[in-house]
């Protein structure tokens, strides 16, 4: 994670109220231009964007989402290997306790001229909530994102600490209880 363009950051408190989304280009994919555009666009749309840049692994997306309590992960893939790179993403989220996070994916997801409906179905089966073609209208995507966040996390989803539990009565927190042992790190020196 390189330091991001932090020059035009909003005052911090205001930032803490916004919905955080994680952005990045998955796999061995170095396309960075679109990624920068997405960062600027979604920031302007009022989201708190954590941009992980290019060549991001599933684990990195998830790490950042856990630390920031993000509402959504937006995965880009432009080099045609998206299907392989995204395999098992939802499962890994569940495994790591991110059981409510929204997963979006977009770009040139597969090689060749596969009709988009087939691509969309494929990625939805993998557990992605929304799948976008390369020529998506970003305004529309942002609108959908706002709607989806509202639906999944409740209307007053913003706020510094809801941990994905807002809009719901206080109940047992599945994210906390069942952690697999391998993602713990009790290194004793």
């Amino acid at each position, binding site marked *: *994670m*390189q*330091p*991001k363009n*932090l020059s035009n950051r909003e005052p*911090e408190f205001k*930032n*803490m*109220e916004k919905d*955080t989304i994680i952005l990045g280009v998955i796999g*061995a*994919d*170095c*396309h960075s231009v679109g990624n920068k555009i997405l960062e600027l666009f979604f920031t302007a749309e009022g989201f*708190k964007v*954590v941009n*992980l*840049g*290019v*060549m991001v*692994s599933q684990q*990195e997306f998830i*790490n*950042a989402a*856990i*630390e*920031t*309590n*993000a509402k959504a992960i937006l995965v880009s893939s432009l*080099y*045609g290997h998206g299907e392989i790179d995204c395999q098992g993403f939802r499962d890994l989220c569940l495994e790591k306790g991110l059981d409510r996070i929204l997963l979006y994916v977009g770009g040139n997801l597969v090689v060749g001229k596969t009709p988009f409906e087939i691509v969309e179905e494929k990625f939805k089966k993998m557990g992605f909530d929304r799948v976008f073609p390369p020529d998506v209208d970003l305004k529309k995507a942002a609108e959908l994102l706002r709607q989806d966040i509202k639906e999944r996390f409740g209307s007053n989803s913003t706020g*510094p*600490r809801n*941990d994905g*539990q807002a809009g719901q009565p206080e109940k047992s*927190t599945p*994210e*906390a209880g069942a*952690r697999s042992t391998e*993602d*713990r*790190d*009790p*290194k*004793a*020196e």
Partner: protein
Amino acid sequence: MKKIISIDIGSTWTKGGLFVLADKNLKLEKRLAVPTTQNNLVQGFSQALTGLLGKDENTPLKELVGAAEIYFSSSAKGGLRIAAIGLVPDLTLQLARLAAMSAGGKVMASFAFSLTRSDLANLEKLQPDILLFSGGTDGGNSQYILENARKLAGSALTCPVVYAGNRAVAEEVVELLHNKEVIVTENLMPEVGQVNLEPAREKIREIFLKRIVSGRGLAEIVELFGTQPRPTPLAVFELVSAIPAHQPEWSDLAAIDIGGATTDFYSNTESYLETDTVVLKGIREPRVKRTVEGDLGMRVSAQSLLDSGWPYLEERLQELGLWAESLKAYVDRISRDLDYLPGSEEESLFDRLLAETCVYYSALRHIGGWKETYTPQGRVYVQTGKDLRRVKAVIGSGGFLSAATTAQIMRHPLLKLKTYGQERKLLPEKPEFYADRQYLFSLLGNLVEKYPVEATALAVASLEKLNDEE
């Protein structure tokens, strides 16, 4: 002309130096070492002080006030033991570990995600000096933090807790931990990828001062001479931090300090150079970094060095035609008799191999690497950790490396580290090796806050360049 005295109270030796400052020029006048008196540190301190000033050993400290400016550091009681809690291992936990080490502490244990019962039992058993509690970006995750705070509140832990996690829940954390001493400071990672270690480091330093001063007579020294001690590793850290700023030809450097119990690795160089073909993964490490390895040391930790360092040792034994059994017997011996010095050529060679092993593994853990990846846009290197390629000077300090007579002790293990697994390690490309021959680094580190230019100038001037010949 001004007389300045710097004293370092170590766990076995109390070292002191008398310096003279004239025309912005700092000179070492006298150096000595006396045994540390464990139960009353003042005894060793005043013995060193009177010795440096050429006074009778029984002169009361009171009468020495004003004879010189006095600065001191201490690593007695085995230094500062810190336990670290973070959220994700690669992010906040990694930063918590770095903050603890660069504050002069030793990380005894670290925990990610939610604390389990056995983690808590482990913490209670360790009874660290400080618990560094982090996790979550500002406004980010709070669930794990609050859950861990609740668990900590119910534990028998008595040490101060430095909270450097999600700012949005700091107040709640304080409330939950009402039965503990909690010090709140800025988040180590306010946003993903943003590294903010300084505030937590400062808090740890303050706690260390209070703790170390309260015990075994040091309060008397502080009161008499009006000077606060610093942890010895922090003194060295401050010196390594200051050298590039004041000695421009020493812009990028590293220092390795091998002691009986630990090996410290310091570096001061830019950690990542952004280019089209190198992508950084994980956090961008700070320019000045210290790591400390509790399992690598020449005496107290010789046995654990044998375990951790076996792959390297085994290869070297074979190359040199030495017996593994003899080395093991030697390690048994020095573990029993910590003051033992080699009595034969073979034993000297064993000591040297142990030192090489400390260099190898401390460098392995401190220095980052590149993995080559092929993408449709061409070859790309994925970097994790810190890039030390631009480091031009590697300084050996501590009992063994200060006395080194050849650069090979450090060069050889570093050369062997060029590739590790699939990784190309980002080692210094064209390093010169130096020895802190007079063992001045910790002493000068005490002076660097007040006399940055003079102390750094003397530090680099006192180094002896090592050649590759034996």
